[in-house]
């Protein structure tokens, strides 16, 4: 019998090792570039070298003459439709009349070797009439030059809450205003984009590195003019995605599929790093104008925000990404009067799209910077201020979403303060900084976030997931879901959920990679939704199977079904644990009794109601919450920065696997630290200059802080075992808390991210010289 102290669960909540660790460690995992097929051709995209221009002529003849070239395809060779846009139809698969960013593909070649393909790509000639490019959001907003005939506004989200905003500011005790800017961030997955397309059964099969095989299926079907059922997508082991492989791989898969389909040979298309950096989507750069009013009691009473986001030359996922910005720009706070305008704008730069956090780390950085300014100015405690304004059950967000359940924000604030030993550290740092002989300045920074789970109001129609579970007669179990393992640990967490629900041992489970021929469209592996969506879909299938197994066990043990308990490969008599039948024997029995042990599962995200005109309603069904505290140290003379420690407290509902959850937080911290103080994508006149790993610099382990992660488990009624998501929240508070810490150390709120040593040094030198002057006076 279970004692009260024991956990109810035997697999869920446990530190289970990653089920895919072994194959990765021994080098057995097969990534797409490891695949080879007979007669396989290699493809290479030919890309625009100018940011904007009309195409006058494309000449393939020189490339076609090269020995070993199998084909050179341009827009006119597309058998289906020349469109790739995932939500808005504004992007061609291959540029036909115009190029809109430097790097836009207008042709794709296939050849017998990678080298020949490279050479042939250089022999495809194009004649342009160059046009003046639109390179800034301000220029785009002015609409002097139109990137697309319909105008430059990709989307404009409004949030209007409460009184007339200007009147509201009139009632504020103090009003703060500041404009922030933030640069691109590149995903920099270790494995670049790639796929292999095979003509098969009058249709096409595509292997690749994807976050959403179903988007790829749709794009290939459109480009080839084939029914979906003739397009099969098989997921390979993925070397990182971070949002960069959500919709973007469709562009490459459709090209490879087109070549394979017409040339009737397997075609492999793998991007090299430089091309990947040049053409694939990035995190949106933004210009963010913030105005915040606070009352005498330290409550935020008014917030006015205007964000201009650089969407680049095509929409890709901008409309959904920026929808998220519009929900999250006010942070996890209760603010009675709000006016927000989030405007996505076309420019002649690389398209921006999905990236871990989906348009929120930028606005969180701006909002949390404002709070830092306010606390410093009014001498308020950063935790108390946040708590006083925090969302809690019964309170409503800036979109007037009344929070009904699973809201552990205040606990994360308390935990972050305690676990970071903030108060002791603050005293130590103040003393350190007062000592002028010290070479460095130290600072602490805080940031809190909330994050809507799943696809929300803007993507509810995609928000479903399927699963398939098959129990073989020897008790081994095959699982297939529609969301992908891309390094985040999905297979392990989902196997834990299935194992708990089926009462089988985790070792009995074999997880297959996504196959669109087996599971129904399950939407993308994004929005921190996989544990919840695929987890619930698996539970649906597992519960059906469990019923059958329980009935069989009851029969074997000669007890009633409600007296059966299942756990770790055994079905017990609840009253006598010595009386049991093994999972294996049950599977064998069912097989002989002709009881089918194969089930489909399906789950749909809870429906939400939202009014896009006013930006009011329930944008998401539930939120994850987090608070992070950073400790940084800056060199007074060089401006060099070091993030020494981060303490992150996350409310993610039930923690299915504490080890993986901590690892997720560590990964988010590393990526966030890079974004905050290091990663600097330089572009000049519409050309990205940092096209390699030695110029687009991300942190090494030596640059990463010590990470302490703690969890608050305010369970969500709709999550599997009460779980919510963590994939994106792990990164989201990082930039803001690091920048706040740097700002507090330097005594200057940094208005641009990344905060580089050059800028810190400049700020500190200005301060020094003004201090020197005042000494003279």
């Amino acid at each position: 019998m279970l004692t009260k102290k024991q956990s109810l669960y035997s697999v869920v909540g446990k530190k289970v090792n990653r089920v895919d660790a072994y194959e990765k460690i021994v080098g057995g995992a097969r990534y797409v570039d490891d695949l080879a097929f007979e007669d396989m051709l290699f493809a290479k995209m030919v890309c625009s070298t100018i940011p904007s221009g009309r195409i006058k002529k494309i000449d393939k003849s020189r490339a076609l003459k090269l020995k070993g070239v199998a084909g050179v395809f341009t827009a006119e060779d597309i058998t289906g439709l020349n469109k790739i846009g995932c939500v808005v139809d504004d992007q061609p698969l291959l540029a036909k009349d115009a190029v809109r960013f430097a790097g836009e593909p207008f042709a794709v070649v296939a050849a017998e070797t990678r080298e020949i393909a490279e050479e042939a790509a250089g022999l495809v000639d194009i004649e342009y009439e160059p046009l003046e490019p639109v390179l800034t959001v301000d220029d785009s907003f002015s609409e002097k030059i139109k990137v697309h005939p319909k105008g430059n506004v990709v989307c404009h989200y409004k949030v209007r809450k409460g009184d007339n905003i200007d009147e509201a500011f009139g009632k504020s005790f103090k009003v703060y205003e500041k404009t922030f800017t933030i640069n691109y961030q590149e995903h920099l997955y270790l494995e670049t984009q790639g796929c292999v397309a095979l003509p098969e059964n009058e249709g096409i099969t595509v292997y690749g590195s994807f976050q959403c095989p179903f988007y790829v299926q749709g794009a290939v079907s459109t480009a080839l003019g084939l029914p979906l059922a003739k397009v099969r997508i098989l997921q390979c082991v993925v070397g990182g995605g971070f949002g960069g492989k959500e919709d973007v791989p469709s562009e490459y898969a459709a090209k490879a599929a087109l070549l394979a389909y017409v040339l009737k040979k397997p075609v492999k298309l793998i991007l090299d790093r430089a091309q990947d950096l040049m053409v694939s989507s990035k995190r949106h750069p933004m210009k963010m104008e913030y105005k915040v009013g606070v009352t005498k009691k330290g409550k935020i009473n008014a917030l006015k925000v205007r964000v201009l986001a650089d969407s680049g030359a095509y929409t890709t996922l901008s409309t959904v990404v920026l929808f998220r910005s519009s929900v999250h720009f006010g942070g996890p706070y209760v603010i009675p009067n709000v006016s927000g305008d989030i405007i996505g704008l076309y420019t002649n730069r690389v398209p921006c799209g999905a990236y871990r956090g989906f348009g929120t780390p930028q606005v969180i950085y701006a909002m949390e910077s404002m709070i830092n300014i306010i606390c410093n100015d009014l001498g308020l405690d950063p935790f108390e201020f946040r708590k006083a304004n925090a969302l809690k059950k019964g309170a409503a967000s800036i979109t007037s979403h009344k929070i009904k359940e699973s809201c552990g924000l205040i606990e994360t604030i308390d935990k972050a303060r305690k676990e970071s030993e903030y108060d002791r550290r603050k005293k130590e740092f103040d003393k350190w900084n007062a000592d002028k002989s010290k070479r460095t300045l130290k600072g602490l920074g805080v940031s809190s976030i909330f994050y809507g789970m799943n696809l929300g109001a803007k993507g509810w129609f995609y928000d479903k997931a399927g699963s398939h579970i098959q129990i073989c007669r020897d008790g081994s179990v095959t699982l297939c879901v529609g969301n992908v393992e891309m390094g985040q640990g999905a297979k392990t967490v989902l196997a834990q959920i299935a194992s708990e629900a089926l009462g089988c041992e985790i070792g009995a489970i074999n997880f297959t990679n996504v196959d669109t021929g087996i599971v129904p469209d399950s939407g993308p592996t994004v929005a921190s939704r996989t544990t919840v969506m695929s987890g619930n879909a698996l539970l649906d299938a597992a519960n059906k199977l469990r019923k059958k197994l329980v009935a069989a066990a009851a029969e074997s043990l000669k007890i009633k079904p409600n007296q059966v308990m299942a756990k770790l490969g055994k079905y017990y008599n609840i009253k006598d644990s010595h009386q049991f039948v093994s999972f294996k024997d049950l599977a064998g029995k069912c097989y002989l009794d002709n009881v089918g042990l194969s089930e489909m599962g399906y789950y749909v995200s809870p429906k939400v109601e939202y009014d896009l005109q006013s930006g009011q309603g329930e944008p998401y069904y539930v939120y994850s919450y987090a608070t992070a505290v950073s400790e940084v140290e800056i060199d007074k003379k060089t401006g060099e920065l070091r993030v020494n420690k981060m303490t992150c407290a996350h409310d993610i509902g039930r923690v299915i696997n504490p080890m993986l959850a901590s690892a997720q937080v560590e990964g988010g911290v590393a990526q966030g630290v890079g974004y905050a103080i290091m990663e600097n994508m330089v572009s000049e006149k519409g050309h990205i200059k940092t096209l390699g790993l030695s110029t687009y610099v991300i942190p090494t382990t030596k640059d990463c802080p010590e990470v302490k992660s703690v969890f608050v488990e305010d369970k969500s009624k709709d999550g599997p075992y009460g779980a919510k998501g963590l994939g994106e929240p792990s990164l989201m508070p990082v930039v803001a808390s690091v920048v706040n810490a740097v700002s507090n150390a330097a005594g200057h709120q940094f208005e641009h991210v990344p905060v580089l040593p050059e800028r810190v040094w400049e700020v500190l030198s200005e301060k020094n010289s003004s201090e020197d002057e005042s000494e003279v006076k």
Partner: protein
Amino acid sequence: MLRNFKVLTPASLNEALYVINNIEQPFRFLAGGTDVLVRLKDNPAYAQALVDISKIGELAKIEEHKSTFVIGSGVRHEALLAYGPFIENYNGLIEAVAAIGSPQIRTLATVGGNIGNASPAGDSIGPLMAFDAEVELRSQDSNRIVKLEDFFTGPGKTVLKHNEIITKIILPKSDALKSGWKRLGQRRAVAISKVSVTLALGFVKHSNGSDRIADVRIALGAVAPTVIRARKAEKFLLENQTLTKAVIKEACGLVAREARPITDIRSNTEYRSEMCGVLLGDLIEKLACAR
């Protein structure tokens, strides 16, 4: 395009000299390959042939002579780091080489390659130049010794002739010098220097018991088309002899003005210049205290 690409693998230095005397295509040496292969991948026109010298044992030795150490051009960074006399007396060199890339890179990459690549950011170059190192350049029928300071003519450019190879680096013994090296990069490892400074200082005891500067060498990396010596700052320190606060400040200012950095994707002119002064100040402090 690698189709007509040639890789030649001479087994000895003599064979290598013969090969480069007779080869027709524009070629590069392959020592550790950590620069040449990266460049070749980015730009196939970088070379049409590689002469693989990585297995020529006679280039991979460090020898001690009466007044010099002779470092074979094929000595790997990790081997240099393990060489006792350098650990004892050439701290600046050790610090610089230990910062190159990562263990993987240092295990493959060579000192000759770092010099041959002629990047103004090449990290071993500063300390070697500060120690007045020379390089031996050999061809089939000539043999000349060039001061490292005179070897570079611009980024990626040197006085090396098409049929010459760097065989050795000759490092004068300088037991009396204390040295140090510091740099700023975009991150803490596997980073290309934005600025690097080498300082070597020699002191003598003055009759009044105080320490006087008898010898100063300063080299600056990544702040000019080649690694350079900061002659004005050196001269100033030598003339002033004692390291007062004012003298240090002045020297740091001088060094910042001697730098001629550019603004590029890694940093900017003003910062790089100023940092030469800051790093020099740090090194002076460190070496003056370490005595």
